[in-house]
Structures are given as structure tokens and as C-alpha cells.
């Protein structure tokens, strides 16, 4: 039988502990604004209709597919940097500011990571529209007095919806390298800038890649537009030291358009030193097989331009 004296003896410290207990958790409506301001995984990806790619598929379709894969890889890498923020409760909440961290960078001992988000009223839109600024910051703890610097920054401006709006993201890899951060995972990348608009169709995503000076590829510019019916456009400018087989060519402009069915068209343009340009066009159907092929040098020409959907 439990004695009352014993019960009271144990209840008293329990009650004291309870009084000292503070509520814990992440149950917050306000946090939703911050979480929804961050682009989610897949949201900024180019969506080329899925189709079976074969050896006989259109050459430019296959090139489009490769570009889309690269584009999506970069977008995913950038989004994933901030996506994890959603998985954790802020370390501190202060009105319109949320801070996660600082945390030790397990992969790079001696470095700390901190994520900060600030929500402000949008001066260009009536309340409750808002804009959010966020950044991923790094600090070298082995250097006394070192301060956090921005490794990535972003903005988001709502447009009548918590999830849809326009925003920018910037990844400063070279800045991190210059500060001594071992950014080996990023290869030749020096900076990545991404701007997007998801409030209404067409959805636009513009990505600029700047590589380090020593890289053979100096950078790329991607412009993606997505319509409500599944049709889309991806324009791709690529600056390189040389294009194999095309002496003097350093810039590649490639524009691909497609319908929701998957049928599409791509045009390539490579200015040459001669003043001419290497130009080509492919049109393909929903089965990805070429309906029309045209090259500036006549190699492999096929079909009629009338069969192109664009």
C-alpha cells in the first residue's frame, strides 16, 4: 500500500519540477510564414514531360534532357541547402526574426553554421503581404574574432499567397573559399544566382552559374518558363573556352520549347570566328523521335519544318 506521506513526499518535488517546466515545441502559426517562404524541393525544377529516350530520339531532345537534368541538379542543390531548415525548430524566435544555430559543421570541424530569417512588411504590397530575407552564414571558429559571413542568401516576396511569390537565391562559393572554407563539393562553381517567380503562370526560373576563372567552362545562364498546360521553355547560354569540332566557338545558345504532350523544338546557335554561326534545329514528336532536322552544314537534314509544333 502506498502511504500518503510517501506519496506527498514524492509529489512535492514533482510539482516543483512542473512549476519550473517551460513549454517546449514548435507549434507555431508564425513559423509557417518562414517555412513557406522557402522554396520546396522540386518547386524550381524544369518539368520536361517524361518520355522514353532512345538512340533514335531527336539529338536536340536528348540535349534538352541533359540540360534539364543539369538545371534541376543545380536548383535542387541550392534548395536543399535551405530545405532542412524546415525540419528543425528555430533556436530562437524574436518577433519577425528566426535563428537556427549556430551549429557546429560536422563535416568541416572548426566551422559553424547559422541560418537567419527575417520577415518584413512588403512596401510594394498591402498587408498582410510580406517579404522574407534569409541567409546561411559560416564562421571559422579557429580564428579569434571571426564573424559570420554569408554563404548563401535569399529573398522571398509573397504575392497574395503564403507559398507562391517571387524570390532570389545566391550561393557565394568563392566568398567561402576566400574565407578558407573547404568548398570542395562545389567543383568549379564560384557563384550561383537564381531568381524565380511562382505567383502566376508562366512560372519563371532564371539561373546564372559563374565558375572560377580557371575552369574550362566560364559559366552558364538558364532561363526556364513553365505554363499551366505543361508546356515550357528552357533557354540555355553556355560560355566555354572551346567547342570540340567548332574552332573559335565559345558561346552556345540553346533554346528548347515543348508542349504538354512532350512534342517540342530546339534551336542551337553557336557564333563562329568567321562571322558565321553554327545553327541547327530539331523538332520531335511526343515519342521523342525527330520529325524535322536541320543543320547549318546540311548534315543529317531530315523531314519538313511544317511538322514542327513551334
Amino acid at each position, binding site marked *: 500500500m502506498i502511504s500518503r506521506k510517501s506519496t506527498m513526499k514524492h509529489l512535492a518535488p514533482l510539482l516543483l519540477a512542473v512549476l519550473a517546466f517551460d513549454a517546449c*515545441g514548435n507549434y507555431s502559426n508564425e513559423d509557417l510564414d518562414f517555412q513557406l517562404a522557402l522554396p520546396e524541393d522540386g518547386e524550381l525544377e524544369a518539368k520536361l514531360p517524361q518520355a522514353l529516350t532512345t538512340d533514335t530520339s531527336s539529338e536536340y531532345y536528348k540535349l534538352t534532357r541533359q540540360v534539364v537534368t543539369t538545371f534541376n541538379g543545380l536548383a535542387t542543390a541550392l534548395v536543399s541547402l535551405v530545405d532542412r531548415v524546415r525540419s528543425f525548430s528555430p533556436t530562437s524566435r524574436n518577433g519577425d526574426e528566426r535563428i537556427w544555430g549556430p551549429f557546429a559543421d560536422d563535416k568541416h570541424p572548426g566551422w559553424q553554421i547559422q541560418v537567419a530569417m527575417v520577415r518584413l512588411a512588403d512596401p510594394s504590397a498591402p498587408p498582410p503581404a510580406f517579404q522574407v530575407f534569409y541567409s546561411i552564414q559560416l564562421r571559422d571558429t579557429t580564428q579569434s574574432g571571426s564573424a559570420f559571413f554569408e554563404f548563401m542568401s535569399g529573398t522571398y516576396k509573397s504575392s497574395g499567397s*503564403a507559398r507562391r511569390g517571387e524570390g532570389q537565391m545566391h550561393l557565394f562559393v568563392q566568398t567561402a573559399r576566400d574565407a578558407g572554407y573547404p568548398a570542395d563539393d562545389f567543383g568549379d562553381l564560384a557563384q550561383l544566382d537564381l531568381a524565380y517567380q511562382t505567383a502566376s503562370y508562366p512560372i519563371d526560373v532564371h539561373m546564372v552559374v559563374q565558375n572560377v576563372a580557371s575552369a574550362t567552362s566560364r559559366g552558364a545562364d538558364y532561363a526556364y518558363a513553365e505554363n499551366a498546360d505543361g508546356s515550357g521553355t528552357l533557354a540555355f547560354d553556355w560560355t566555354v573556352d572551346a567547342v570540340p569540332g567548332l574552332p573559335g566557338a565559345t558561346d552556345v545558345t540553346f533554346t528548347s520549347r515543348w508542349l504538354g504532350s512532350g512534342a517540342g523544338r530546339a534551336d542551337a546557335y553557336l557564333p563562329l570566328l568567321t562571322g558565321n554561326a553554327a545553327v541547327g534545329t530539331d523538332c520531335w514528336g511526343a515519342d521523342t523521335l525527330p520529325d524535322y532536322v536541320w543543320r547549318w552544314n546540311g548534315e543529317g537534314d531530315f523531314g519538313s519544318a511544317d511538322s514542327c509544333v513551334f
Partner: protein
Amino acid sequence: MSRTRRHLTRAGPRVGLFLALLLTPALASAERRFALVAGNDAGGPDTRPLLFASQDARRFHAVLTQLGGVAPSDADLLVNRRAEEFLRSFASFESRIADAQRHGERTVFIVYYSGHAKDGDLRLGDSRLGFSALKARLAAAPADIRVGIFDSCHSGIVTRSKGARRAPAFEIEAAGSQETRGLVLLSSASADEEAQESDEIGGSYFSQYLVSGLRGDADRSRDRRVTLSEAYAYAYARTVADTAESAAGAQHPTFSFDLKGNADLVLTDLTSRREGLYVPTSAPAGTYYFIDGSGFIAAEVVKPADADRQIALPAGRYRVRRRLADRLRIGEIRVAEGQLLTLDESRLRDAPFSDDPVKGGRRDSDVRLSLSLGATVQAFFDAPTRDSLFPPTGLVSAELQVHNFFRRGWLWALDVAGGSAGGQVTRLDTPLPFRFSEFTAGMSLATEWPLWGNRLVPYAGLRLAYLLLSRKFEDRTIPDQFLSTFSPGLVAGVRYRLWGEFAALARARAHYLLYSVDENRSLGYWELSAGVSYDF
């Protein structure tokens, strides 16, 4: 404070005649004993609940089944049961006794009742049992010896002092004479008196002393056996002495009999159980109290100056108290299994009255458990909170209620509840549906006010709850959210007994919740519950 009870018989204190008729003890052979023991704290709408009636029944039942000649299978303890159940049990015993007799066994049937009686009826809750009819039925029972003991009451005002004493368990061996047959009736008070109970002794005076005497302190013949006459004489003397100065006046137990034969009933054989306490002749005279670990008086011994005393005590640790005019003598003893411990006066020390070890002792038997299951509706007072943060929720709840645990009339309750509801929060015109879930565990401490003979029991008090609130959004890109916190509140309810041990329960709670995730906000919520409880 004491509570009074009305007598059941008008036999008067004819102790001498009783003793004469029950003068010669005789041991039983091939005897089988049956016991129906009932206690009921409630007596219906026009009575106040008793404090110790059920306690008295438990004590008497324990004596008979644990240490006496009554096998547990031949005893029935009815606590707070209705007259219909009492009669069903009685009929069952009649049948079993008849079977035993057909097998040549000599039988004794003991019926004990503690509770209210009024207008010639025993009051078992809100049911009644005519005393005349019961007496006639007992007289006609097939047992060789029928013993009826009635410690009955209906209402009264008495003065109860602090402290309580719990009756010890002790050995009973009963041996009816081969020749003795008939009916013996004992009652706790005469016709124009009210029986009394007291917190000081933790029971009714009569039952407490009857049981205490049977433990060994009534063994005046010093033959290590306590007969029915010895027990009665002891209970009579102690009851009269202790109630003489009470507000209700002296209480005189009575008896009546219709016996053939001249042998007494031996109820206790202390030699059959060795462990206990021996107070030698050399020990100072006085009343010794032995208090168990819970602060209850487990046994008492009135020791004369020129005699020793022995009492059966279960193995365990006890504190000893002997009261002098200006101080206490206190000490500690340990009775080992199978050991008869001799009390050593040198192990006692002087202590002020403020160190009385009896203080703070309480009544185990008052503790009552009930379990309730029900449905609860919960909602926050603040509309925006209710609409977008914590939506109104239906909960399934269970509560374990412990009555009279910390204090008589107090309710200590432990509860759990769980439920779920749909909700939606809108951010920038974007609706975000979610599934809200809640788990709560709470502890309440409340005061009860029994009405209508315990049929209706309102209560009110404080509650401390632990809440685990969580929500999952339909948009799975939004992480799950949770809040874990404690919440103090108030609780009020009412329990209405439906039938038997079942009662309907209605309850309201109001709680405070400090929400501190985004900012510190003081929130409140209410709960309404309905359910069914079962008393164990």
C-alpha cells in the same frame, strides 16, 4: 468528532446473565464456521454518511478469515452493498450450511453488520432490510449456533478528535460446545441510545473494542483464549467508559440470546499464533498503544500493575506509545516472524505530547477507488486560437479516482485522455488544413460533498495537466508541429450513483495555458466531460 448511531436491540446490559450462560468454554470438533460480514457507510437520503462502517466490517472480516476458524471461502464481505445483495448472500449461506450439516458437520453462522439503522430497518445505502425479518431468518438458519452482531446507526452529532486507530488483526479460534445450540444477538447500543464512532479510534467504539478484545486484550481468564463472553465484556466496559463523557452520552452494548447448553464460545486461541508482543508484569501499568508504519493504532494493551499481557501482532515494525500525565513514553519495536517479543521499558524514552506518533495517522479502509470512462469536449476560450491554432477537440478519457486518500472527503484523481480533430490555419489567404491530435494526463485534488446518502456527490478542486498537442499538415512539406506543456486549472463535477457500483459522471474544467512558442500568451480552455464510473 463522533457520529452517533441508533441501537437495534433493547435487551439491556444484562451482562451477568449472559456471562453465566456462556461460562464454560468448550472446544469444537468437526466444526465449520460461516460468516456474512456487511458494512455500509451510507444510509439513504435522510442520513449522513458514516465514516467507519465499512472499515468496521473489513476489520471484523479480516479477523474471521485470516486468523479465525472461518475459511475465506466460507466468508462473504459486503461493503456498501444493497439489501438485495445481502439477502442473496444470506440465502447462499443457508444452502451451504444445510449441505455442511448433511455431511455431519457442526456449524456456526456469524452475521455482522455495521451501518445505519432507522425505524426498525437496517439501511444499506438507499435500500432497507427489516430488522425483525432478519432476526427471524437468522433464528431459523440451519446452523447449530447463530451469532448476530449489529453495530448500527442512523444519524447523530458527535465530537471526533484527531488521529485514528486501526484495529489489528489477531487470532480467533471458535469452539462451540457440542451441546450448545441456539441464537445469540449482540448490539452496540441499547434502545434509547445512539452508537458512536470516533476518529480517535478509527471506527465505532463497539466494533473497535470488540475486535481489540478478540485480539487478546480481553483474555481475562489468562488461558490464552478469548471467549465470546470475554470479548463482549471487554467491549462493553471499554465502550461505556469511552463514551461516558461524549456529547451523545454513554453507550451501552446489549445482548439477547436463545441458547440450549451451557458452554461458551471460544473465539481466540493466542497459542496458535506465536508472533506478537508480551508485556511483562514488571512493565509499568497503563495503556500501551502499538502504532504501525502508517500511523495507525494496530493494537492496544491495558496492562494492570500486577499482571502481564500478551497480544497477537503481525510481524513488522511498530512504534510504542504510553501516555503519562505530563508526557509520553515512546519507542520502536520490531516483531519478527514467529517471534514473541518482550517489551523492554528501557527502550522507551520520554517525549512531549507534540511527538505523539499517532498524529497524522489515517484510515486505510476509507480509501476507495473508482474508475471512470467518458467523453470530453475541449475548446479554447480565445476565438482566433480556437480557429487557427488549437481547434475544438473531442477526447476519450479515463480517470482513476482515489477517495479519502490524503484526507477524508478529498478526491485524488489521475486521468488520461486522447483525441483528434481537423483544423485549418490560413496564412496569406492560403488555407493549410491539418489534423490536430491531443494527449493529456492530469492529476486532480478535489473536495467531495456527498449528498443523499452518497447518491449524489458534487466535487470541486484543482488540477494539473500535462498536454501534448500536435498537428500534421496535409501539405507534407510542412513539418509536424507539437507543443508539450503543463497547465493548471480548476475542476468541478458531480457523480450520481445509478445502480450498484455504477455512477454517472459529469465534469467541467477550466485551465490556464501559457503559450510561449512565438510569444508569451496567456490562454485558457474549458472541458466538459460525461461518463460512467465504477466503484471498486
